[in-house]
C-alpha cells in the first residue's frame, strides 16, 4: 500500500461525486523521502455544471498505516462566490480535534463533529450548492 493507491481511489471518488479537479497541476503529492508512505491532497475541486467560483477547498494529510491509510489532518470547505460557506476540519491541536464550521449565522463558529469521509463532505456540499449556487446555463 502506498499513497498513490489512495490517490487513485480519491480521484475516482471525485468523479463519482460529480466533481472535477481544476487546473493543470493535480492536487495529489507524496512526501519526498517517505517511500510514498506519506502525502498530501491540496487543491480546489469544482462542481460539475457550476462555474469555477463554486468549489470545495480540500486539504488532506495522509499516512499509510499497515494496510490502510489514515488522515491525521484534513479540511474540506465549500466556497461559493468568494464566501466560505462552511466545512469540516480535523487536527489534533484543535479542541475538539474534529469539528465543523458553519457560517450560516455566525462566521467560523465551530461545533464538534464525527470524522467525516470525503464523499460525505462532498455530498453535503452538493446540497448547499444545489440550493444556493447558480449553475452554468446554456444559451
Amino acid at each position, binding site marked *: 500500500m502506498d499513497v498513490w493507491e489512495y490517490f487513485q481511489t480519491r*480521484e475516482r471518488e471525485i468523479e463519482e461525486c460529480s466533481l472535477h479537479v481544476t487546473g493543470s497541476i493535480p492536487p495529489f503529492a507524496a512526501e519526498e523521502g517517505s517511500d510514498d508512505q506519506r502525502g498530501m491532497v491540496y487543491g480546489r475541486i469544482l462542481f460539475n455544471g457550476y462555474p469555477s467560483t463554486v468549489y470545495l477547498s480540500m486539504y488532506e494529510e495522509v499516512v499509510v498505516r499497515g494496510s490502510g491509510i489514515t488522515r491525521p489532518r484534513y479540511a474540506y470547505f465549500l466556497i461559493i462566490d468568494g464566501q*466560505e460557506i462552511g466545512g469540516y476540519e480535523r487536527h489534533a491541536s484543535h479542541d475538539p480535534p474534529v469539528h465543523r464550521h458553519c457560517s450560516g449565522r455566525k462566521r467560523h463558529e465551530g461545533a464538534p463533529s464525527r470524522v467525516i469521509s470525503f464523499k460525505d463532505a462532498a455530498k453535503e456540499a452538493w446540497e448547499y450548492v444545489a440550493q444556493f449556487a447558480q449553475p452554468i446555463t446554456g444559451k
Partner: protein
Amino acid sequence: MQKLYYNAESLDRGLREFEREYGMSTEDFYARYTAGEKLPIPRFDQHSWAAFRDAIDRLTDGAGVQPRPVVERVGQALICA
C-alpha cells in the same frame, strides 16, 4: 497518474504565498492561530497555512528551511532537470 512530490522547500514557498496574500509573517500568524485568535483569514487558508508550517517543522526537525544563495538553488534545479 502523474507523480508529484513535495518537500520542506516547496512547502516553504507555500508559506511565502500566504504571507504575501495576508500581509502577515508565518510566525505571527501561527502564534495567533494557535492561541485561538479570530483572524480575518478564510478558515481553509488558516488550516492549510498552519499545516504547511507544521509539516516543515516535522521535516526539518524544527530547524525550518534555511535560505540558500540563488546560485546554489539554480545549480540544483539544473542538476535535477
